């Protein structure tokens, strides 16, 4: 059958995509490795300096501070998003009108830009014109409007709140699909056996959607590890550089201070961290798909 299906034709169909990836991903990646071993500047010039940039990154307190802050942000936000996403999925998993509408509305912020949503929340949290302050004062929760972004703690909270609003629908949608694919029979059998709702959640829903839970956790964690927009817009890295994330730190060094060589080394370190995370993701998905 299909004599026209010559193997070389098949490869020819792939060729444009392969060429594109080679030119715009593979070649830049190799260049990046080379740049990371130079003291190249955005202003031009720069020669080979071996692993000096990596040594410098290792001894750079500000880099460790940024990395630590990013890890803290990820470690705080990921369980919050997963837990809340799962609860919302439990609430809205049925396909009747109200849960469906609720699901649609929770998901709505996922489709808008992170830049737009960050500017929206930057305004809502503003000390003078922000409605969050106005509401909290009107409800007598705080006495005076807060300057949220001038302290690390409150700025961190404000950002986590805005990001939860923005992306909790993503995890929820994945969980709803996983929960809906669990057969009704299983649940009915558990009900007949006298299992309470939360027993069913613990014994049936969570174990059977384990794969999706893992995937969503990793996707979300990788996303948080690469956070930039929200911090650039809302805190600007401040106060005193305490809310720089890793990507923000790379951006700052490469494109604000023009230290491209150093920025390239930092990019490689960042890519290695993310690669480790996504390898884990692929490995887990293969493993749970096989079992």
């Amino acid at each position, binding site marked *: 059958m299909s004599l026209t299906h010559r193997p070389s034709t098949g490869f020819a169909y792939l060729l444009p*995509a392969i060429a594109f990836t080679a030119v715009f991903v593979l070649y830049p*990646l190799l260049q990046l490795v080379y740049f990371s071993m130079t003291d190249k500047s955005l202003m031009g010039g720069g020669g080979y300096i071996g692993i000096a940039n990596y040594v410098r990154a290792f001894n750079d307190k500000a880099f460790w501070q940024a990395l630590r802050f990013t890890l803290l942000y990820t470690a705080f936000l990921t369980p919050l998003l997963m837990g809340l996403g799962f609860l919302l999925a439990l609430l809205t998993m049925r396909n009747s009108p109200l849960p469906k509408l609720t699901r649609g509305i929770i998901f709505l912020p996922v489709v808008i830009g992170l830049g737009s949503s960050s500017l929206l929340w930057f305004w809502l949290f503003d000390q003078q014109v922000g409605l969050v302050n106005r509401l909290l004062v009107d409800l007598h929760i705080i006495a005076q409007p807060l300057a949220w972004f001038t302290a690390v703690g409150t700025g961190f909270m404000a950002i986590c709140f805005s990001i939860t609003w923005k992306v909790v629908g993503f995890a929820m949608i994945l969980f709803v699909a996983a929960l809906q694919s669990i057969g009704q029979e299983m649940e009915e059998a558990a009900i007949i056996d006298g299992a309470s709702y939360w027993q069913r959640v613990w014994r049936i829903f969570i174990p059977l959607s384990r794969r999706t839970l893992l995937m969503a956790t990793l996707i979300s964690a990788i996303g948080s590890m690469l956070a930039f927009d929200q911090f650039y817009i809302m805190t600007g890295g401040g106060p005193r550089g305490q809310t720089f994330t890793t*990507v923000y730190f790379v951006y700052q060094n490469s494109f604000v201070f023009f230290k491209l060589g150093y920025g390239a080394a930092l990019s490689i370190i*960042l890519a290695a961290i993310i690669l480790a995370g996504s390898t884990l993701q692929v490995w887990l998905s293969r493993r749970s798909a096989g079992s």
Partner: protein
Amino acid sequence: MSVAVQPSQKRTSFKRLAFNVACILICTVMLAPLLMSLSASLKSPSEANLVPPTYLPSVYSLANYAKVFNYQVGLVTYVWNSLAAAGLSIAMCLMLSVPAGYGLARYNFRFKEAWFLFLVATMMLPFQALLIPLYLMFAKIGLANSHIGLALVHTVIQLPFSIYIMRNSFEGVPKEIEDASYVDGCRSFTSLRRVMLPLVMPGVVTVALFAFINSWNEFLAALIFLNNEKAFTVPILLVSVRTGIQGAVDWGALQAGVMLSVVPCIAIYLLLQRYYVSGLLSGAVK
């Protein structure tokens, strides 16, 4: 049995009430920020900058929108820049991923899976790390500050997902349909165009939809690649509105800008919700 019916019915109706209240409460919380932004954008400019703020406009006005419309070189230019980058990115994603998906789904050749891995493995590499070499490359060949350069970066981000979706779509088409087209005398490329393409339309829509949303919203690459005010896309325009003139933020204009940037995404999502959710699921749970 009959004794137990009444209290359990009462409990069920209480549960239903609690469920409805919870849903409505959550909807309110989720919609409030967008509605508040909309309301602020419709205030008069002076009311939008009032301290403390009002919840709802006392007078409705489109003055904030007029301000954004005339901001610097004019909103039309910025929207056009965003649309051009998004349009080019959609075109490139489709031109690369449709043939690739077809080749992967319908042909057997040496190292096929290895090539597939090569194409989608770039998903594991954060594009943020590639921005330095890409920036230097584009600066050298004159693609910095251009729609084409930005669209190329957005295609780098979106291509692995697009190829993955198109391969799945082509694999979902029964082989008999294609074989029949060969019996009817179609050549490979004609068959792809005339017979297969209409059948994988949902995949094509998904690829285009995600390419659009990604490009329209993408922030970091646009921030780095565009430093000429005339080349700004909408997200970068918004940041420049926030920075304001002489340090004072024009809050009303900023919220009008936020609304303008958000509305296309929401409209497309409402229109193509089905594709959006299915694309998300197949992309994430691979």
